[in-house]
């Protein structure tokens, strides 16, 4: 009897401990709303779009300042900063994609491009090139500075630029460089580049995403720069322990000697940057709390409470990417009917989703475009854009032949992320309210990326789009095509008029406000997509930062040109 009672008690205690541990795992998300608002009030500064700086007013005594500087100075007097990144880049080659965005972050510190795209100003600025001139619809002359050297002392000429760009084009992961038809050096420091078409944005991408290096350094590399990159920037790679950390050191031999000519991204305000690879977000937060790192990026708002004190600064930036709902517009899906699509749009309250998923930390999206796009227009905001209207949604469904006895059944596909999953659940609830039954189809990233081009896998799918492009037409490219058979179309759309309009917008001659506005209205009127929201990205720093700069709409860190207390 005693044994039975004891055994049962033990079993109950074990069950309670398992439940308690599960509750502990979820408690943070339940209190997330309170945490975010507390942190928001106390520490968050700066809401910005793009590559602009946030000045931090640090309240430090001289002693505190000296201690911090001493703690970030090596024995030989060089300043250093430790930054957490979420993955090993895999490769530092200037071509193609490594793993995630980390490769891009570190490449930015090692290599330079002809020009730089400043999102905040929506324009290109000179970098290695002093400017360019358009020769005809597809041909441009790009003028390079004549005193550029890489970190190995090799002098950069037009031949090196041609070599760099054509290497990028011919790489099997050529990306944006694939638009180059031809490139040649017409004099020592001038490159004539011919694009394959007059497609808007493609030449600009070569200018600001085509990394440049010398032929001599590339030939000397034993592995085509994969682990031995040599660029023209102020930094060089000194150590890379795969999966653990990467160290860059500032050279003292940068080609641009006149500091007055520096653009923001040429600044090098710290001597040594240690990128610590910490894959788990919780561990990055802990590393920040223990002082192991000085900056963490893309922190979820539920983790902000721990930094609500004077030892940290929290920066918030509106993510340039938009969470968007995309419909299967083919005849195979109920969403092929425009009335059904419009009904779904009217059933949704995007502000409500933002409130629940992100505790209101973000902004409702108004188009597949952002203020940072060079071809998005303020007047677009004026139109009525499917505000929640449940009665209208039901009326449209009735008009389409659906009702209580014949409900619409749709399949919602999405990649399982911490934002997508709750967003999908709320969408399901909104749609149930108007009589639409939603079957959820969560899948992992690679599967989602493949299936979104297959019309039989979904009736609607949800994901983040756009963000880093200077032109929103680049995101609209995914809506053109012949529909089911055309794998370049994420909405299974077979609309010749849509294709014609997009192609006109893509032509640099007709890429103007009239055509862009007409296309925007066409996409919106037909409800091919429904933009939901943009959420906040948080960056947390220790008190060594006196000015924070981020790249690519706040999505990338750039510790090299932040300012530190030792720069003041």
């Amino acid at each position, binding site marked *: 009897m005693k*044994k039975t009672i*004891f055994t049962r008690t*033990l079993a109950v205690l*074990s069950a309670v*401990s*398992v439940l308690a*541990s599960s509750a*502990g*795992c979820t408690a943070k998300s339940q209190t997330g709303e309170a945490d975010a608002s507390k942190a928001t009030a106390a520490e968050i500064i700066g809401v910005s779009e793009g590559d602009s700086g946030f000045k931090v007013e640090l309240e430090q005594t001289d002693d505190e300042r000296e201690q911090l500087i001493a703690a970030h100075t090596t024995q030989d007097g060089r300043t250093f900063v430790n930054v957490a990144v979420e*993955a*090993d880049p*895999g*490769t530092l*080659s200037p071509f*193609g*994609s*490594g*793993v995630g965005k980390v490769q891009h972050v570190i490449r930015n510190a090692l290599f330079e491009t002809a020009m730089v795209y400043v999102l905040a100003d929506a324009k290109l600025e000179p970098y290695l090139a002093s400017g360019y001139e358009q020769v005809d619809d597809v041909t441009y002359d790009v003028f390079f500075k004549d005193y550029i050297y890489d970190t190995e002392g090799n002098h950069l000429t037009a031949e090196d630029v041609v070599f760099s760009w054509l290497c990028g084009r011919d790489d*099997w*992961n*050529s*990306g*944006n460089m*694939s638009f180059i038809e031809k490139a040649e050096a017409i004099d020592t420091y001038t490159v004539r580049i011919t694009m394959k078409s007059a497609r808007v944005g493609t030449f600009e991408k070569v200018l600001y995403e085509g990394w440049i290096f010398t032929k001599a350094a590339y030939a000397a590399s034993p*592995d*085509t720069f*994969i*682990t031995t990159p040599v660029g023209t920037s102020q930094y060089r790679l000194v150590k890379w*322990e*795969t*999966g*653990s*950390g990467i160290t860059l050191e500032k050279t003292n031999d940068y080609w641009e000697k006149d500091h007055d000519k520096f653009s923001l991204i040429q600044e090098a305000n710290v001597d040594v940057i240690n990128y*610590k*690879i*910490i*894959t*788990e977000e*919780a*561990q990055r937060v*802990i*590393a920040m*709390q*223990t002082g*192991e790192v000085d900056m963490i990026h893309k922190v979820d708002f539920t983790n902000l409470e721990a930094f609500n004190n004077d030892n940290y600064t929290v920066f918030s930036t509106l993510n340039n990417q938009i969470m968007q709902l995309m419909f299967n517009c083919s005849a195979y899906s109920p969403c092929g009917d425009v009335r059904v699509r419009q009904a779904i749009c009217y059933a949704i309250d995007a502000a409500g989703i933002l409130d629940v998923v992100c505790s209101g930390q973000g902004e409702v999206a108004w188009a597949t475009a952002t203020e940072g796009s060079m071809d998005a227009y303020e007047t677009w905001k004026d139109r009525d854009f499917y505000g929640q209207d449940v009665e209208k949604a039901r009326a449209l469904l009735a008009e389409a032949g659906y009702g209580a006895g014949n409900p619409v059944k749709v399949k919602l596909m999405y990649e399982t992320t911490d934002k997508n999953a709750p967003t999908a659940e709320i969408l399901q609830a909104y749609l149930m309210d108007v009589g639409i039954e939603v079957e959820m189809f969560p899948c*992992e*990233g*690679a*599967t989602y*990326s*493949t*299936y979104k*081009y297959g019309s039989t896998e979904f009736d609607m799918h949800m994901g983040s789009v756009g963000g880093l492009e200077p032109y929103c037409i680049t995101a609209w490219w*995914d809506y053109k095509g012949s529909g089911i058979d*055309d*794998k*370049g179309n994420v909405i299974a759309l077979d609309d010749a008029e849509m294709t014609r309009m997009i192609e006109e917008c893509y032509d640099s001659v007709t890429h103007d406000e009239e055509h862009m506005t007409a296309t925007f209205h066409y996409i919106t009127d037909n409800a091919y997509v429904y933009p939901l929201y943009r959420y906040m990205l948080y960056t947390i720093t220790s008190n060594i930062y006196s000015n924070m700069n981020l790249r690519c709409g706040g999505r990338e860190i750039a510790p090299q040109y932040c300012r530190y207390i030792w720069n003041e």
Partner: protein
Amino acid sequence: MGKYIIRRLLWMIPVILGVAVFIFTIMYWVPGDPAQLILGAEGTPETIAELREKMGLNEPYGVQLVRYLKQVFIEFNFGESYFTRRSVGGELIARIPRTVALGISSMLLTILVGTPLGIMAAVYQNRIPDRICMIIALIGVSMPAFWMALMLVIVFSVRLGILPAQGIDGVSSYILPILSLSFAGWGSQARMSRSAMLEVIRSDYVTTASAKGLTQREVIFKHALPNAMIPIITSAGGQLAHVFGGSAVIENVFSIPGVGNYMIQAINTRDYPIVEGSVIFLAIVFAICMLLVDIGYAFADPRIKAQYVGRNSKRKVAAND
């Protein structure tokens, strides 16, 4: 015994071959196009098709399989990562020591803690030490390894500040990962050890040994434990699967750049050469560990050893005749 080991080693070849075919087939059929993932949003149907052609992904299954098997088993080349172009073999060689160190250390700790817990529980059956050991065992099997990992980090790194939270800077960096990974194994190892010991303790020869006036220590360690070792060794072998399988999660939590971490990233990006290479490596490790377990049987159980010695002796006699 030597022939037995050689025979087992030879049997490993078709096993590893089978694993290679199996993992290749799975990756062939799993949804997700590496060419599309590499090119991302910039990929058009034409560029994706062209890249698939370059990568050899358009060839029939049989052709791709034969090419892969030839590359791995004849050329001893695991290929290059689709994304980073780095040699998979080179990366595995760099990462293997960390995974093996983590795995072997965890397994040893599991055996060194779990087995004595189980023995103590069996010896003091139904008394307080038994209860305490079984509570520890129950907690061990109930708590997920990743949760235990984060709890240990909060206590030892954040609150006490005595151990690093992640990374591989020195021996101290491995303490928390090893504890997290082995903790779950304590429970199952303790329970198996207890069960095996209880079965043996009730045997007549153990009763006789006690009756003869031997000390408890002598009874347990000279008579009971050797006979209970077979299931304990079997359980330890089973822990290997748990340890190496769980190491992927623990490596991710503690940012240890091991094989598990490498493989998880590659699965998400459909980097086939890395996934296939990692699985084949893990299969080789398992096969070797199972061989060591079988050899352990021979040393633990004289009857098994006698079988092989007996066979050899009979053959020698027959040959002399």
